[in-house]
């Protein structure tokens, strides 16, 4: 897993471990990425992305960091690159990944283990 210590140096994201505060600094950095993901509200745009991923990313002017994170479908890297989870969910949704799938991916456990953890919170 990528070291996360550098997060604290980026703006006022508070000091809550494992948590991104999507503030002005991240919103600025992530704007092209989030704008692309917002476009995925429309089925035609989801198809255009699947037809030619690199061209679609280029249209929105993603940074190299953002394009790399998109290629790897890596949610933590997408957050780091300024993505907001509400828009990113529209991206991961293209591949049928729901919030439990991306929860498992971000926490490094299986989806079943992630679901078990959620259930255990009821105890």
């Amino acid at each position: 897993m990528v070291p996360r210590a550098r997060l604290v140096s980026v703006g006022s994201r508070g000091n809550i471990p494992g948590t991104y505060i999507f503030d002005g600094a991240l919103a600025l950095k992530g704007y092209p990425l989030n704008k692309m993901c917002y476009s995925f509200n429309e089925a035609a745009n989801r198809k255009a992305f699947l037809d030619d991923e690199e061209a679609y990313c280029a249209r929105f002017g993603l940074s190299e960091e953002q394009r790399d994170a998109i290629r790897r479908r890596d949610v933590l890297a997408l957050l780091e690159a300024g993505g907001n989870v509400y828009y990113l969910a529209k991206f991961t949704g293209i591949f049928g990944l729901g919030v439990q799938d991306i929860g498992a991916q971000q926490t490094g456990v299986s989806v079943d283990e992630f679901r078990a953890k959620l259930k255990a919170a009821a105890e």
Partner: protein
Amino acid sequence: MAQIVGGICTSHIPAIGNAIARGLEDDPYWRPFFGGYPRAREWLEEMKPDVAVMIYNDHGLNFFLDKMPTFAIGAAAEYRNADEGWGLPTVAPFPGDPKLSWHVIESVMADEFDVTTCQEMLVDHAFTVPLQLLWPGRNRRAVRTVPVALNTVQHPLPSPARCFKLGHALGRAIESYPEDVRVVVIATGGMSHQLDGERAGFINKEFDLHCLEKVVDQPEDLARFTIHDLVRLAGTQGVELISWLVMRGALAEPVTKVHSHYHIPVSNTAAGLMVLGVAA
């Protein structure tokens, strides 16, 4: 004169909309959640509201980061749902009440809440799912709606204290409307959940139960939290609890608890429901 008949707070998780679309209300995973709602529907049957003022947050359907209003009020004759990108079926449009919307806008502006006004506004799952839960099937056409959207996407977010005060202004706005309409104020969102980061899956039952208790009699205690307190205690998306404070602020004292329900988990979220009545 218009009358506020009470308030409801409920979670609005998209998976609920999928479960409704697939008829899974009695499925073993879903029954403990849906089982909380018949009492709320009965109460609505008794109260017979004409209008539901919906306090909710948009998740990137109507608003994008190009223009992100802190508080936005719909003033349309009809509100449409649309594709949110990840497969939730869309539902039929909901009727608005533009005359009441404009009265509310005039009144809260006079109370120094400088809101964004929307004559066109797509409404996402945070608006549609609670209406589907509370007025199942076609019955939801019976109630007109006034959407009030809060920014919970891009920080800085409105503070819990500010949201509570917006609720006060909203209450004054509704109760000064000269027509005889019965209004229920419905807040959607929460309870604790976090979708993003290494802390994804965070749920805080103790804090949620604290909120369910305090929202009835001591909402001022909840209004004292900062946004960062809420992120820490309820998770990144648990900040949606600010909508509960808007609803609670709109109710005249004293309120009575009619019904509450709490269930972990629905998808990644702790699901809460609270029905509050006011003195007749």
